[in-house]
C-alpha cells in the first residue's frame, strides 16, 4: 500500500487564491529579446508590484482561506508556506503570515522549499498533522514570485501567485481527501545555488526525465492505488510550467481537455511555481459541484510529484462566495511594458 491516507478522515475546510494585478505579455518580452518566431509558451504572466512579495501574497490568500473556512485563526495549529522565493534567506515567511492573520501564538510555523512542489509538500504535512489528531486545523500555502534570468526561456513564464488551503476534519470539509501519493527521485533538472539570483535549468532535460516522468508516475500512482480511471474525475489539475506540458501529461494519462481546462491558468498568469497546481485547484473549486472528484498533481524540480484526490461536498455551496474567486484575480489585470517590468522585478542596478 503506497497510498497515503490518515486514519482520521480530513479535507479542505477553506481555500484562497492570490494573483498580483500586473501582467507582461510574452510578445513584449519577445520584442526585447527576440524569439517569437519559435512560438511563445504563454500569452502573459503576472508580475508582483513593488510592495508585494511571497509574504504579502500569502497573507491575502490566507485571509481568503480563513473567510471561506469560517474558523477563528487561533484554531490553526500550523501555518506552513512553501515557496522558492521567500523574502528572507534566514527568517520564516510563515511567522509573518501567521501574525498578520491573527494566528500567531500557539502554532507551528515554518517554511518549505522544494522548487515548485513546496506548497503541496506542506499540504501533505498538514493532512498528516490533522489526520493524526495532533491538530484540528492546519494551513498550507504555496506561493511564489518566481524570477527568470533576462533572455532565458524561463523569463516568459516565471509568474507570481499561489493559494492557501486550510485542512481540517472531514465533517467540516468542502472537499474530502480520498488519499494522496508522492513520487520523488534525485533528478537535477532545475536548481539555484546559494547566493545566486537566478536558477539554472537543464533545458530539454526538464521535460521527459523530470516533469513527465514524475508527474505521470505521481498521478498514475494515485489512480492505481485508489482504483480509479481518469473518467472517474470531474477535473484534474497538473503543475503547469507552460501550457503544453500539463496538456501533454493529461493526454498521456487519459484525461480529456475539458477536464483540465478550468484549472489550467498558466496562459494568463504564468508559472506560479509552488502555487501553480494549488491555485489551479482553487479555480476548479470555485466552479465545482458537490460530488465532483478532483485530482491535483504537483511537480517540483529536483524532483517529485504529489498527487491528491478530493471529493467535493455540499459545504462548497455556502463557502465559495465568502472570498474573492480565483478568476477575479486572473481577470484583474494591468498590462505593463518591459521597462516597468524590469523596475518592478528589481532588474535595474541602482548603485
Amino acid at each position, binding site marked *: 500500500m503506497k497510498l497515503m491516507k490518515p486514519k482520521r478522515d480530513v479535507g479542505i475546510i477553506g481555500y484562497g487564491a492570490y494573483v498580483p494585478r500586473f501582467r507582461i505579455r510574452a510578445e513584449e518580452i519577445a520584442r526585447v529579446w527576440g524569439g517569437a518566431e519559435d512560438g511563445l509558451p504563454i500569452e502573459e504572466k503576472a508580475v508582483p508590484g513593488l510592495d508585494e512579495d511571497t509574504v504579502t501574497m500569502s497573507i491575502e490568500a490566507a485571509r481568503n482561506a480563513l473567510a471561506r473556512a469560517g474558523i477563528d485563526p487561533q484554531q490553526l495549529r500550523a501555518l506552513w508556506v512553501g515557496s522558492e522565493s521567500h*523574502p528572507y534567506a534566514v527568517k520564516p515567511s510563515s511567522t509573518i503570515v501567521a501574525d*498578520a492573520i491573527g494566528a500567531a501564538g500557539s502554532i507551528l510555523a515554518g517554511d518549505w522549499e522544494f522548487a515548485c512542489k513546496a506548497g503541496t509538500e506542506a499540504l501533505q504535512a498538514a493532512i498528516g498533522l490533522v489526520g493524526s489528531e495532533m491538530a484540528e486545523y492546519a494551513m498550507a500555502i504555496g506561493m511564489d514570485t518566481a524570477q527568470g534570468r533576462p533572455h532565458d526561456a524561463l523569463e516568459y513564464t516565471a509568474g507570481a501567485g499561489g493559494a492557501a488551503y486550510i485542512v481540517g476534519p472531514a465533517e467540516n470539509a468542502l472537499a474530502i481527501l480520498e488519499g494522496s501519493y508522492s513520487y520523488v527521485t534525485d533528478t537535477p533538472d532545475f536548481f539555484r545555488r546559494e547566493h545566486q539570483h537566478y536558477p539554472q535549468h537543464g533545458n530539454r532535460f526538464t521535460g521527459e526525465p523530470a516533469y513527465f516522468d514524475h508527474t505521470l508516475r505521481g498521478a498514475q500512482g494515485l489512480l492505481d492505488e485508489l482504483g480509479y480511471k481518469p473518467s472517474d474525475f470531474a477535473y484534474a489539475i497538473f503543475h503547469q510550467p507552460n501550457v503544453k506540458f500539463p496538456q501533454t501529461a493529461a493526454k498521456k494519462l487519459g484525461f480529456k481537455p475539458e477536464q483540465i481546462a478550468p484549472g489550467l491558468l498558466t496562459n494568463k498568469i504564468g508559472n506560479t511555481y509552488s502555487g501553480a497546481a494549488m491555485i489551479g485547484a482553487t479555480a476548479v473549486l470555485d466552479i465545482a459541484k458537490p460530488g465532483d472528484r478532483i485530482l491535483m498533481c504537483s511537480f517540483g524540480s529536483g524532483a517529485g510529484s504529489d498527487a491528491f484526490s478530493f471529493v467535493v461536498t455540499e459545504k462548497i455551496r455556502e463557502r465559495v462566495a465568502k472570498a474573492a474567486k480565483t478568476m477575479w484575480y486572473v481577470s484583474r489585470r494591468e498590462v505593463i511594458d518591459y521597462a516597468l517590468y524590469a523596475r518592478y522585478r528589481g532588474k535595474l542596478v541602482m548603485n
Partner: protein
Amino acid sequence: MDLARNWRLKDQRFRLEGTVCAECGAKFFPPRQVCTECKSTNLTPHEFDGHGELYSFTTLRSAPMGYEDQLPYVVGMVKLDEGPIVEAQITDVNPDALKIGQRVEMVTRKLRAYGDDGVIVYGYKFRPVANGA
C-alpha cells in the same frame, strides 16, 4: 534598523489593532490608553475590520528616506467605518482613478526594507474595494 520599534507596532500594522473604551464605546486608532471622550483608562484592544472610505489623498513625488523606491505613490486619509481616520498608502490603483468617498479596504503590503541586508517592514495599506466573491 529600529527592530524593536517596528516590532512593537506590528499588531497595529498587521491587523489594524487599536483600542475601544469599555465605558463609552469610543474606538481609537492608533491605540490610546486614555479615552478622549470620557477620560476613562479602561480601554481594551480592538481589531478594526479594515473597511472605510477615502477621505482625502495626494500623490507623493518626493519621499522620506527609505520610501524612494516606490515613488510616485499615493498617500491617503481613510475614514474607517468604525470611526477613526487612518493615514496610509493607497495601493493597487492609478492616482487618476481615485475619488474622494471611494470605498477602500485594508491590505498588508511591504512598507519598506532597510536596505538589501536589513529587515523588511510589512503593514497596512488600503486599496479600492475588491469585489471578486
